[in-house]
């Protein structure tokens, strides 16, 4: 019974926090851009989330007649399922982890590579030009950034000697990995933003040129699923950064779970700040940046980490 209830509670909390994040983001962006943001509904505008949910659920759920219907419906589900699956391997605290999988890190990479299908199929099934452009951009971007996302994490694997996220966290009891792996941290963060296609790397849905990119044709809760999926992606990437580079649940005085939540929220806020502070690159700049700078840097980091490990053994 316990094994069944815990994951359900975690799922519920995740969905709620992803929904709340839509409000948090708009509110904080507002403060950083010297305006109020949504502050009308409830105290501090907190009930804006509820209002948005009512709006999304009651809107007409329209499937365009020219769309590939089955795939059109499946596409938004894929991103939700993949992102929620990703949380199964995150060690929230020494006691709280849904599955302690030996190849947890590979599982995470598999999840993130499968979530490409969501964006791609959404663009394909919409059968419209802007959606196709968005999907093409998203797919090329995600495949490219996936390559060195995986490579950058191998430095952590070399240092900890394991693919299991729990063992990686335990290996950081003396020194958090962001100190020896500072380059990998930078690469992983940039790749993470590109994977969850958020600003400044939100070219797949850049509203200033291709309407809304891959989800142009989506409305109602199907659009809502892409939206929530994106926020879940942000939380997942933040949780992975904390687990891999910032010692996971470890920290003095406070209980482990609280440490984990604090660190993760700090990175979620950082992602929002990034959106407020950075301009978008051009699409060709984005791709060139990935292949010409990030990939060689990731390889160099891997080489140096391996050499260091062999030297000290």
């Amino acid at each position: 019974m316990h094994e069944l209830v815990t994951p359900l509670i975690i799922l519920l909390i995740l969905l709620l926090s992803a929904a709340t994040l839509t409000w948090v983001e708009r509110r904080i962006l507002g403060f950083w851009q010297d305006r109020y943001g949504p502050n009308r509904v409830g105290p501090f505008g907190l009930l804006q989330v509820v209002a948005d949910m009512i709006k999304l659920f009651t809107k007409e759920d329209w499937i365009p007649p020219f769309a590939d219907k089955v795939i059109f419906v499946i596409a938004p589900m894929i991103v939700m399922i993949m992102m929620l699956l990703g949380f199964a391997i995150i060690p929230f605290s020494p006691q709280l982890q849904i599955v302690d999988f030996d190849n947890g890190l590979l599982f995470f990479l598999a999840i993130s590579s499968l979530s490409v299908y969501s964006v791609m199929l959404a663009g394909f099934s919409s059968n419209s030009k802007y959606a196709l452009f968005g999907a093409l951009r998203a797919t090329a971007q995600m495949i490219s950034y996936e390559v060195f996302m995986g490579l950058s994490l191998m430095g952590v694997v070399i240092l900890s000697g394991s693919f299991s996220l729990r063992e990686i966290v335990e290996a950081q009891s003396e020194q958090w990995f962001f100190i020896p792996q500072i380059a990998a941290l930078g690469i992983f963060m940039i790749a993470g933003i590109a994977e969850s296609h958020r600003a400044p790397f939100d070219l797949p849905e850049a509203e200033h040129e291709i309407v809304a990119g891959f989800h142009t044709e989506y409305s109602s809760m199907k659009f809502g699923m892409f939206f929530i999926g994106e926020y879940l992606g942000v939380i997942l990437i933040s949780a992975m950064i904390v687990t891999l580079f910032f010692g996971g649940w470890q920290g003095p005085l406070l209980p482990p779970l609280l440490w984990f939540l604090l660190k993760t929220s700090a990175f979620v806020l950082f992602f929002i700040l990034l959106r407020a502070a950075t301009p978008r690159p051009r699409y060709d700049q984005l791709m060139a940046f990935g292949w010409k700078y990030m990939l060689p840097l990731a390889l160099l980091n891997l080489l140096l980490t391996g050499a260091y490990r062999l030297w000290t053994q």
Partner: protein
Amino acid sequence: MIAVLFYIAAAVALLSAVLTVPRHNAVHALLYLVITMLAISLIFFLLGAAFAAALQIIVYAGAIMVLFVFVTMMLHQGELSIRQEAQLYRPSQSFGAIVLSIVLLLETLYLLAPVLIEQQATASALNVIGAKQIGLQLFGPYLLLVEIAALLLLTALIGAFHIARRHQEIPT
């Protein structure tokens, strides 16, 4: 329990592989192939090769098939190509292939049957293979193969670079 899961995964893999063939819409066919990859990954996982299972998803389902769908999506001609495809392909055409495949299947079953019966008698414990074992094998006895694969990939990379290169005017 594992045996039941294995047979379900195998059935899904076979069914989706068969369904790949008669689709008129190329993207639908490719999606069935993706499901085949996922089912094969599950089979690897059930056999204790978790590392291979993860790689199967990352490499095949997550990269190679994505590129397949990517290219097909760009070349997608809509209803026209689907109708064209429907005219080109009729189920009766694959009759010969089906008969020949069944012959091969029967042969395989004949060869496998004694092994299967033997295994049922001595159902051994699941042998879980970790990443370390795979690494030791790859960079120990199979080092030459790894090097050859690396060489092959490098050649492919140079070839792709050559094809994708912008054609420049040759100065006269």
